[in-house]
């Protein structure tokens, strides 16, 4: 009962999501700190899916056992069928630790399982470790991303979700995991939820590939303040981004949200106007080469995570930038 179980979530194109490989990489570190622990992966799949390629990909993560459960009810996501099956497999496998990707699907399934198994769950962790008592120690941002909390659980399995791209993928020497195929029988059970239509989502990559990003937060105060920053970005030929709070306030649209809940970016230059720097936001910009922050609160966390910090009202600096640029043209 020292085993670690990972949920292998598929993307819409029936490929394992990046978070699965990221969790497997991290699980190797956890497994090494536990005695006699096995790493297991659980995959739910429609009956007709071919697994050759998927299994080949999975040979580099030191997995001991891959459990593939087949049923046509797993063709699309249905929380009832997923929950029903995963719960039973978890009871059967009886792992010490159960990790799930922090996707919208993962964040739906995880609390269903934890509530029905009466066990603790820590959401959106950014660090996982094993403590001296050989239990899971899960660290997550809380309080709007201003505080970090390390959470321990008194019950088993100890469950956690981790957002995509929080952990890095690390490959190991090739091995041959035991593969167990199972058919799952729902018997008389029928979900009352039904999928009427599925519309594929187009992902906007402008931000992910941007070289210069001007990004706005609540320091811009209102819609007009943010519009001024958009205008500046247009003049500069930069991409525009926003913090979670300014998106939630309705001043910026959600497809430009940067951070753990939005997009991760890796610009050459990231300029944050009036963003205080919640942990989730900092996680999303940590791969940017240079970060400039403008904020009127000298104690704002972002000043500990920037290359150049300017303590000033972001709106005033935007105005001056506009002036300087119009003189140049």
């Amino acid at each position, binding site marked *: 009962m020292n085993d670690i179980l990972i949920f292998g979530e598929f993307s819409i194109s029936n490929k394992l999501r990046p978070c699965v490989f990221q969790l497997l990489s991290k699980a190797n570190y956890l497994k090494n700190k536990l005695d006699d622990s096995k790493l297991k992966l659980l995959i739910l799949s429609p009956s007709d899916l071919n697994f050759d390629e998927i299994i080949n990909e999975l040979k580099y993560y030191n997995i001991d056992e891959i459990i593939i459960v087949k049923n046509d009810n797993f063709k699309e996501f249905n929380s009832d069928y997923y929950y029903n099956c995963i719960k039973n497999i978890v009871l059967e496998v009886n792992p010490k630790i159960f990790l799930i990707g922090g996707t919208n699907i993962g964040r739906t399934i995880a609390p269903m399982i934890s509530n029905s198994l009466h066990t603790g769950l820590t959401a959106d962790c950014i660090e996982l470790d094993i403590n001296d008592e050989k239990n899971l120690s899960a660290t997550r941002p809380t309080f709007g991303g201003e505080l970090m909390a390390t*959470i321990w659980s008194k019950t088993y399995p100890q469950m956690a979700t981790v957002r995509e791209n929080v952990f890095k993928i690390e490959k190991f020497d090739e091995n041959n995991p035991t593969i167990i195929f199972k058919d799952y029988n729902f018997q008389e059970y029928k979900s009352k939820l039904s999928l009427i239509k599925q519309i594929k989502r187009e992902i906007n990559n402008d931000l992910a590939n941007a070289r210069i990003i001007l990004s706005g937060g609540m320091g811009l105060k209102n819609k007009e303040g943010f519009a001024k920053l958009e205008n500046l970005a247009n003049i500069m030929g930069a991409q525009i981004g926003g913090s979670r709070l300014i998106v939630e306030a309705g001043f910026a649209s959600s497809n430009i949200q940067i951070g753990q809940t939005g997009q991760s970016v890796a610009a050459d230059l990231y300029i944050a106007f009036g963003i205080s720097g919640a942990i989730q936001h900092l996680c999303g910009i940590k791969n940017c080469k240079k970060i400039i922050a*403008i904020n009127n609160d000298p104690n704002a966390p972002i000043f500990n995570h920037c290359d150049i910090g300017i303590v000033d009202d972001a709106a005033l600096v935007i105005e001056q930038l506009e002036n300087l640029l119009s003189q140049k043209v």
Partner: protein
Amino acid sequence: MKQQLKIAVCIKQVPDTGQIKWTQNNTIDRTNMDSIINLCDEYALEMAFNIKEAYKDKQTQISVFSMGPYKACEILKYALALGCDNAYLITDKVFLGSDSYITSKILAQAIKYVFQDEFDLVICGQFASDGDTAQTGVGIAVNLNIPVVTYISSLIEVNDDSIVVQQNFEDSFNIVKLPLKSLMCVINNNCKLRNPNVLGYMLSQRKDIKILTANDLGFERNQVGLQGSPTYVYNAYRYNEDNNREKKIYSNLSSNDGAKIILKEVQKLFDYYED
């Protein structure tokens, strides 16, 4: 066809994390912190009103629940002023320190206590801006043993015994039909939220907020709060990850000089691209 529709909406009062000020000792300055209704929960209320309006020929009753200290009456009053019919404050000092697992249990028990199983929909915000675990709504559904649909961005249509909604996932939008007697978790979709009007405020003055305690709901002290919760916070601290950033901070520049520093960096980059 059932003529009555009973909706329960669960809301939470949260600190206004958009206004956090830090002290020099890396603790949060709570002295001037405002408490507000959690944003997703405003959309949950909006969803309840939209459903009520869509079911023209049903009599819809919206009851709102909140677990928290007495101060949380503020947001329950707000919900009543918006037009909710009943409000319940779930409060007891033994609930203090409950994690999301226990909170789900308590809220589910309150819904059972009030409705004795005679309800049609429970609507929650997807997550709270302070904890952001996104677990409580789903947990309530498991405790009530009803289907749950998460990440709902909009209402598509209502039928006699079902509701059709849009659910947002990372790589798809799903149009999903859910039965009456299920739980919906609603996200912020930037739709226009209604505001209470004067008549709403006046009518709400006549409505009482009913109090539910651990005793009412049949919980023993050791089943709830910190003691009953499977998880606990071992340690909490301000995030200060080591990083190699230069952290050159300018505190007393004119805005014009600040702008010049930024432009210099932009220029450097353009020069670099041209090379």
